[in-house]
């Protein structure tokens, strides 16, 4: 109904052209190839400390669900790919970059946007370690993080529904 697609080369001229510094202030996204990852580095042991202080309250001391305890933020850690009942970073996340991006933009839930890049690298390292994706001594930075192959990566497929009659 409303889609009179308006193609015009002439510009309306509304809005304000912006330059690099103003864009950079908002440009927080991270791609699977690492584009967007900032300078800085993080280690598992630092991450473990920050996690205990800023995350454990909502995600549990070890990031796992205990029977009978409802975690405010849900479980983040699982042991293997087999137990798919609880979807976690270890068994369900296809890209490690997503972890950095999401923690930086949205966590901790009560103080989103409060972590610095080093903290986010460290937390990512700790959570990947806790999920048995990386070893305890791996140091994460803009180069190493995107190289991590997540266990669940191979399970993900793009939508293969094509519309039409087929039930898929």
């Amino acid at each position, binding site marked *: *109904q*409303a*889609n*009179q*697609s*308006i*193609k*015009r*080369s002439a*510009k*309306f001229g*509304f*809005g*304000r*052209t*912006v*330059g690099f510094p*103003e*864009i950079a202030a*908002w*440009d*927080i*996204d*991270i*791609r*699977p*190839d690492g584009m967007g990852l900032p300078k800085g580095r993080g280690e598992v042991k630092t991450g473990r400390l920050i996690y205990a202080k800023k995350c454990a309250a909502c995600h549990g001391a070890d990031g796992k669900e205990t029977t009978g305890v409802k975690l405010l933020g849900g479980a983040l850690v699982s042991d293997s790919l087999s137990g*798919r009942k609880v*979807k976690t*970073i270890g068994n*369900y*996340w*296809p*890209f490690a*970059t*997503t972890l950095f*991006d*999401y923690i930086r*933009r*949205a966590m901790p*839930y009560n103080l*989103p*946007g409060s972590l610095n890049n080093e903290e986010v690298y460290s937390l990512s390292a700790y959570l990947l370690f806790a999920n048995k994706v990386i070893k305890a001594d791996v140091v994460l930075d803009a180069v190493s993080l995107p190289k991590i192959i997540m266990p*669940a990566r191979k*399970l*993900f*497929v*793009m*939508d*293969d*529904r094509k*519309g*039409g*009659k*087929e*039930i*898929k």
Partner: protein
Amino acid sequence: AVLPVNNLFASQRSPQDFLPLAPEDPTKVPGQGPSPLGKRSPFESPVRKPSDISSRTPLQDMHGTITPSDLHFERHHAGIPTIDPAIHELLIHGLVETPIKFTLADLKKFPSVTRICFIECAGNFRTGKEEMTPQDILGLTSQSEWTGVMLSTLFNEVGIDPSAKWFLAEGSDAAVMTRTIPLSKAWDDAMVVYAQNGEAIRPEQGYPMRLLLPGFEGNMNIKWLRRIKLSDEPYMTREETSKYTYPVKDRIRMFSFELDARSIIIYPAYPAKINKGYVQIRGIAWSGRGKVEKVEVSTDRGQTWQIANLQEPVLSKAHTYFRYEWNWDGDATEILSRVTDETGYLQPTLQQLIEARGPDISGYHMNPVTAWKINKDGTVLFKAEPLK
């Protein structure tokens, strides 16, 4: 077909609740004068059903297709931000000729366009017990008349690099909600909207501006929109990997944007009670892929199907009201509806969905035919089919 006054929110209000006073003969008492803003009758109090993270539209109480703005379902991941429209800006950048920031006032200068369509959460399906209302089962869908600017208009303004294939949309809420959308949707029917049902968009729906992607998963229609970035590949954000993905046999399906066609009977439905004789069966049907082509109703447990009447006008990617005139003979039975959309897709049964996707079927993109059990005493219960 008894639909007693105030039964509408039976689940929220017990008959013992206080009802307002009305004069015995209203023709003898001058009433209240005109006012700047109207209110509901004190005898009516439709409500959404809120949980911690969402609230559901009372579908069973809807007599039309436009959801009253204050009853539009909610789903947010970090609450509703309070945004000053004089400060808020939308940045479009990335693979563009000229990165530009637009204020709300700027957006309103562009050619405006209005369209009616539904927005539905991709996780809109609950089952589990017989005492469920349409609101409980399917309340995460609502419909509005949206007004704003075609995204293509804004994209022409910034100039899109030929290498761009996707765009990231980002919200200004505390979740800084982010999704990646194929660029083709922008050239098709995507909009940035600032008005809902005639007036400014409501805070829960993204005030002062949101992305509108007719027919796509609700979550992608980014609210409180503050940034769009053109890219040659998707970002694999948390909401398109950890969430809004679902097992299909031994794989996990992601980037499944279009919502397949579905329908639900909203009357008679739990907790209504009907009488023998004429009953108008009413419901809504919709498809994320275009117009509703036809709705069929069965009053004999799915053995035979009859064509329902569609309320005109039937719009694309829009809730379509259907009605079917029924004479209930008083026997226990089950009533069902199923929709066919203009692509020829027929709404599947739960069994068909399980066959297609495997036994690990999850809460996203679940659009099975739903049935209501009519008992001999006229009470109506949801036929809560087990997921496995």
